């Protein structure tokens, strides 16, 4: 490792916890409380779905095998739909959720719910068909045909088909056999899938009958989920884009396949961007207008300018590197919890690899760092990956803080985040960051590399709350 800036002489003295730390502790406590409440709310909403059925006297209707199957079908349908609505809320980019847990964790939870929700909805259809068939003394095929002729049932089957398509493309897309853009378009079908299922929920069965509180609650859930999406995914970004009038000012190639896009607009400082955040950008050219991309700010916006830096990871982001100055840009965001606001510890340890430097750059720019507070390691395989490195040491806040670089390939056959050279010298995460356990660790880089850093940090005894990660995947 090479030392890029000299640490200040006072960096070794331990600082007593000051008012900054107390404020940080209070903020952390509030945030964790809000997160716990949100988790409890999800639990309660699932319970409420079952309670709807209980309140309609559902238990009394269970008398034999057929009615038990029918009841199970109703309950799985209610829970499955509730989970899908929860998924919509998680994906709605509600500011409160982003502030508390971060959009990436919300989406991770959204993804976890996908398959269980689909299984519940499939079970709902299967159980009810079998239950009805048993009660009527007919068979499953006849019953399905008869169900299909019900007023809203054809729509419900359509919704089921769409839901299957959405989940399958998501699972395939996660395995990278699908482009992000195509997956995104198919994913929008989930809105249609949820909406067309609503009529049969209200007209068939007795749980959500006219004039009942259950019906009011259920419609309220739908309004909440779709309202959140309409407001936070469509209205707010549209208004924000119109208000700030963002355009491309220039595109600067800073390394092979890596470009910094300079943006200009009105009152960009009022976006309220915190260092380390990202936004989802849409460039209005003929080839790029139909897909939006999450890209980190590589500098905190000023009143008139902003800068984002992106490496072409897919065909879509490659096209972004070719946009012309003057191109209109719309923004969704800023989002993200890879910010100073989520710090809990007195010191700061930072590791960035490759394009992961972008949020790190703006994070460090935005942090009011004292001398000796931060230690930064910049990691690259070869000199082509050292983009923006020269800017780090020049940041005003980095005065008196150490920046190290670790260049070189990882050793073959060893799972490590360090270079072979550093490893051979006996460097570990604890020697790289001597005050690690008193630090917030901010990590940004490729997924597998990031996982290895976190593995080492955990092994060194760093608490989970002090580990902050920005993932560059979707």
């Amino acid at each position, binding site marked *: 490792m090479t030392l890029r800036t000299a640490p200040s002489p006072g960096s070794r003295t331990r600082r007593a916890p000051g008012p900054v730390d107390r404020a940080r502790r209070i903020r952390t406590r509030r945030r*964790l409380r809000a*997160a*716990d*409440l949100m*988790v*409890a*709310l*999800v*639990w*309660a909403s*699932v*319970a*409420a779905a*079952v*309670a*709807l*059925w*209980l*309140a*309609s*006297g*559902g*238990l*009394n*209707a*269970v*008398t*034999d095998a*057929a*009615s038990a199957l*029918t009841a199970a079908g109703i309950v799985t349908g209610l829970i499955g739909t509730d989970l899908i609505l929860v998924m919509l809320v998680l994906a709605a980019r509600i500011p409160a959720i982003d502030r508390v847990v971060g959009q990436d964790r919300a989406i991770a939870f959204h993804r976890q719910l996908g398959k269980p929700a689909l299984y519940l909805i499939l079970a709902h259809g299967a159980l009810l068909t079998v239950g*009805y068939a048993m*009660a*009527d*003394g*007919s068979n499953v095929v006849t019953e399905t045909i*008869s*169900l299909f*002729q*019900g*007023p809203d049932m054809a729509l419900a089957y359509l919704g089921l088909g769409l839901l299957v398509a959405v989940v399958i493309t998501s699972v395939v897309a996660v395995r990278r056999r699908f482009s992000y853009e195509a997956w995104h378009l198919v994913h929008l079908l989930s809105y249609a899938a949820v909406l067309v299922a609503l009529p049969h929920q209200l007209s*068939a069965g*007795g749980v959500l*009958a*006219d*004039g*009942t*509180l*259950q019906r009011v609650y259920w419609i309220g859930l739908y309004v909440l989920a779709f309202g959140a999406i309409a407001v936070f995914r469509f209205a707010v970004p549209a208004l924000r884009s119109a208000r700030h009038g963002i355009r491309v000012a220039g595109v600067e190639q800073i390394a092979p396949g890596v470009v910094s896009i300079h943006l200009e607009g009105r009152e960009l400082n009022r976006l309220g961007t915190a260092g380390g955040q990202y936004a989802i950008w849409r460039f209005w050219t003929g080839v790029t207008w139909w897909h939006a991309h999450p890209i980190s700010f590589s500098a905190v916006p000023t009143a008139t300018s902003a800068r984002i830096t992106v490496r072409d990871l897919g065909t879509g982001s490659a096209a972004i590197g070719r946009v012309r100055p003057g191109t209109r840009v719309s923004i969704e965001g800023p989002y993200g919890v890879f910010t100073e606001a989520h710090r809990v510890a007195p010191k700061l340890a930072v590791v960035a690899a490759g394009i992961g430097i972008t949020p790190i750059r703006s994070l460090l720019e935005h942090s009011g760092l004292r001398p000796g507070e931060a230690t930064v390691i910049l990691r690259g395989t070869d000199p082509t990956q050292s983009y923006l490195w020269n800017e780090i040491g020049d940041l005003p806040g980095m005065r008196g803080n150490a920046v190290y670089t670790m260049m070189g390939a990882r050793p073959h056959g060893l799972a490590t985040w360090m270079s072979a050279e550093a490893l051979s010298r006996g460097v570990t995460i604890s020697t790289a960051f001597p005050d690690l356990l008193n630090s917030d660790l901010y990590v940004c880089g490729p997924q597998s590399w990031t996982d290895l850093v976190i593995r080492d940090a955990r092994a060194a005894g760093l608490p989970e709350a002090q580990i902050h990660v920005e993932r560059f995947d979707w």
Partner: protein
Amino acid sequence: MRARALVLGILSSTAVLAVGWQLGTQGETQPAPDAVAASTAGTSTPGTPTVTPDATSTPAPSASASAAATAAPAATPTPTVAGGVSGTFTGTSVQTRFGPVQVQITVADGTITDVTALQLTDKDQRSVSISNRAAPVLRQEVLTAQSANVQGVSGATYTSDGYLSSLQSALDQAGL
């Protein structure tokens, strides 16, 4: 902190479920406003849900019947001897969310001898099959009890409520 989320989640879920269960067991289900709840039709334990298709009381829930369904209750009482009233009495047509329900009773000497369903819930295929299943059971229960004071058929709440409600109005006309 995860532990606190878990505890909060379990507590709130339990509370919500308890409220739902309480509402559900508080006697009646909440009836839809357009379905006149029969005073006696509970959704509590059913009697004998043995479905025996009864040839004598084939319900004919046809679309043509709905035109006549709203006609004023017709009663043709025959003056009789001491024993009691005789004749056929048609109950009011009761609207449910799955279609109107109307029944007619035949009374001989103060005894209900037959119940005919003039119209049963028929909004869709599913309603028709529920009606076909419930009507024979309800008829048998009414003939046995000689009143509308019988248990409804489980899984056929709306049909049962409408059936017994219409039946009660027929009984009222007959003065039974």
